[in-house]
């Protein structure tokens, strides 16, 4: 595993300069860039609600993609996506995608997260990210928001799950673009991931004072 990562790093080193220029604005805001990023899977260790330490990349070794869904206990938009997330999990876990539900708000305690998982019937593995290690790695800003790492464990996508919400208070009766599903299909088919500059709509992750 480590050898492969190092090899990828080395191969991609040449692209670094171009990437850095393109994504200067993103870097400036402290948000990691998308695409072209070499960013091999770093080793990140978080706790699950039972207090066990988990490296979500290591645990997903060999899987075709790793998807993180950022959620929070008290955000109504995030909660309303629970059935959608469960369906996506049902479809794509079977297609070799590792799914993680991530709670980034420090107020969402392990106990609160356990109760939340039970109340909403999430079958997805959950992680707590109160120090925002994964938040910083992926650049997400709100819940619900998704981040997808491809086979090479480069960040392939960050953003909304679908286009149901246009902004807070403006929503479609049903989504007409299933952005995350499209991204996962592309990653699985080794196609270029479609990039749609559509920010996720939801509740800002706490402490996101800029």
């Amino acid at each position, binding site marked *: 595993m480590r050898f492969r990562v190092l090899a990828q790093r080395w191969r991609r080193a040449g692209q670094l300069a171009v990437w850095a220029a393109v994504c200067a604005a993103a870097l400036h805001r402290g948000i990691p860039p998308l695409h072209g990023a070499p960013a091999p899977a770093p080793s990140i260790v978080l706790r699950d609600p039972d207090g066990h330490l988990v490296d979500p990349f290591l645990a997903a070794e060999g899987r075709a993609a790793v998807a993180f869904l950022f959620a929070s206990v008290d955000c109504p938009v995030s909660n309303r996506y*629970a059935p959608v997330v469960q369906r996506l999990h049902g479809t794509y876990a079977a297609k070799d995608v590792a799914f993680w539900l991530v709670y980034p708000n420090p107020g969402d305690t392990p106990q609160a997260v356990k109760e939340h998982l039970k109340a909403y019937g999430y079958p997805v593995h959950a992680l707590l990210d109160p120090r925002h290690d994964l938040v910083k790695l992926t650049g997400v800003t709100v819940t619900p928001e998704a981040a997808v790492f491809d086979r090479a464990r480069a960040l392939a996508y960050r953003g909304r799950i679908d286009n149901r919400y246009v902004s807070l208070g403006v929503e479609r009766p049903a989504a007409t673009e299933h952005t995350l599903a499209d991204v996962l299909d592309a990653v699985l088919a080794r196609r270029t991931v479609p990039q749609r500059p559509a920010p996720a709509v939801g509740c800002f992750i706490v402490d996101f004072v800029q």
Partner: protein
Amino acid sequence: MTRILPRTLAVLVALLAPVGGAVAADTPVTFSKDVAPIVYAKCGTCHRPGGAAPFSLLTYPLARAHATQIVTVTGSGYMPPWQADADYGGEFLDQPRLTAADLDVLRRWVAAGAPEGDTKDLPPMPSWTDGWQLGTPDLVVTTPAYTLPPEGTDVFRIFVVRIPVDRARFVRGLEFRPGNPRVVHHANIRVDRSGASRRFDEDEEGPGYSGLVANSAVYPDGHFLGWTPGQVPPLLPKGLAWTLEPGTDLVVELHMQPSGKPEPVETAIGFYFGNDPPERTPAMLRLGRQSIDIPPGEKQYTITDAFELPVDVEVQAVQPHAHFRAKEITGFATLPDGTQRPLIHIRNWDFRWQHVYRYVQPFTLPRGTRLQMRYTYDNSAENPRNPNNPPRRVYWGQRSSDEMGDLWVQVLTKTRADLDVLNGQFVTKVMAEDVIGYERWLESEPDSAPLHNSVAQLYLDLKRPQDAVRHFRAALALSPSVPAAHFNLGTALTLAGEFDAAIAQFEQALALRPDYAQAHNNLGSVLLQRGQLDRAVPHLEAAVTADPLNPQAHYNAATAALRLGRTAEAVGHLRRTVELSPDSPVPLIELSWLLAASPDTTVRDAALAVRLAARAAALTARRDAGALDALAAAQASAGDFTRAVQTADAALALKPANAAEIAARRSLYQQQRPFTLAR
């Protein structure tokens, strides 16, 4: 009894002394000193523990955690949830308005890293009332337990609950508690005295129904009911209560938003009663178009409507109503001298905030003022709220996938006579609009039984029973085994004068449901009118037994008892009728005649007769000769012949058809002799 709500008080204080003020640009902004006063006054009603909002913002750690969110949603105008343009129409009650200075404080606080500051600067935390905001209700009804599915589009469901009162009550207020504020977004509340909503509910399995709000489900006596988060209408002042009669159903349409998991929903409605009968009744005017027909792709479809006021009015409140394609909503008044008085403006209409906008300062509009509205709609794919993708042609209709455009305007007139003039002109206008809307709607849904029922009900109100019969027949053909369908047709046939056909329909309804109280009542009533006393009596008795709170059943039973010469029994039923329906002049008049002038002297009660007849005369503004005739007889029975003669003169001045009879009675009174009814 008058209570000032802490919340209303908070708003008043906010109006008097805008919180936050203007903080000098170079002063550091802190939570304790600058932000907390804003949050307490403008957000705390909902964003407190146990409030309607999903999270509290009352402490520094909570506000700090949501700091970016606060600036984003207040900056975009999403919060506080208030749709109306602040500079148009005037100040409204419960308006949680953030000033430009407030917004600036919030922005600068977050820009500075959302510091806490010195906790000694914190203002005292306001206290909010948990539970009922208006105090302990006199009566609480709950909607039947319902489980909202975890996902999908918003759910609209209508619950019908019998209001358990055994005599007429005067309602000063109504408080709605959502029970589960996470999913209950707003409630549209009406009352139905006809039973039609109940029949709609019975036709559908499970708690509540998902069809149409019946035409007979109305705002009671010109009073808005309903709830949006953060809104508790204050108790009505003395003399403005509305009368709740036994047998009335509460019709609660809930707008619910799925939360991501199955949610139990059980709402509670508290009633607050007063002792004083209404002295004034508001009028509920409605502007709007039901000829709405928007082509797909149309981005700027406009409807306008106007109504010229025939009398002076005082405007109390407005409520705009439209669905998902409505974009901009404007209501205004053009005074006789040409000046415009703004009523309300909503630039970005959001269907999900169905607010009643009550003016802090009601204002007068003179006779000849034109109330006007202009609504625009976007039926293109660029309107994300469009329920149809791709867009389709859309007509007027009650379902949220159809479109509507109404502006309700609540006004008070100076006198009862003015109210009658206003209602007379307004009802004609509105019903003509209703017929256009429903008939058009039926063209696209000819097989909808509820729709046929609604149109038929409308024709009954318009006194066009033949048209009602046509539509009830269509509804019956669509659902032949529904007892209510036979009942409805029977009722319309009765009003159309087709008694034999009506009797057959009532009998079929009873064959399907033997304990159908209203069918017993109406069948008994028709048989009574046909002179078939023997057949009528068992049905009338069954009607009273099955529904002892139905004033009509008691009234019919009284009529039958009188025909059978059972005066005491008739008096008993009429007394019950008057208790159950104290504002209906006819039973008041009939009972007072018996109490004043019955040949059976054991039932007489002259003093009560005077009181009841005086109430009937007041209810008819002393312009009904029958009420005055009864009052004169009662006064004579009580020995007050001078008054009796005066009252008889007042009756005769109205030039009634039975003037000769009244004149004959008047000469009796002049001779100091009371009048006695013939046996």
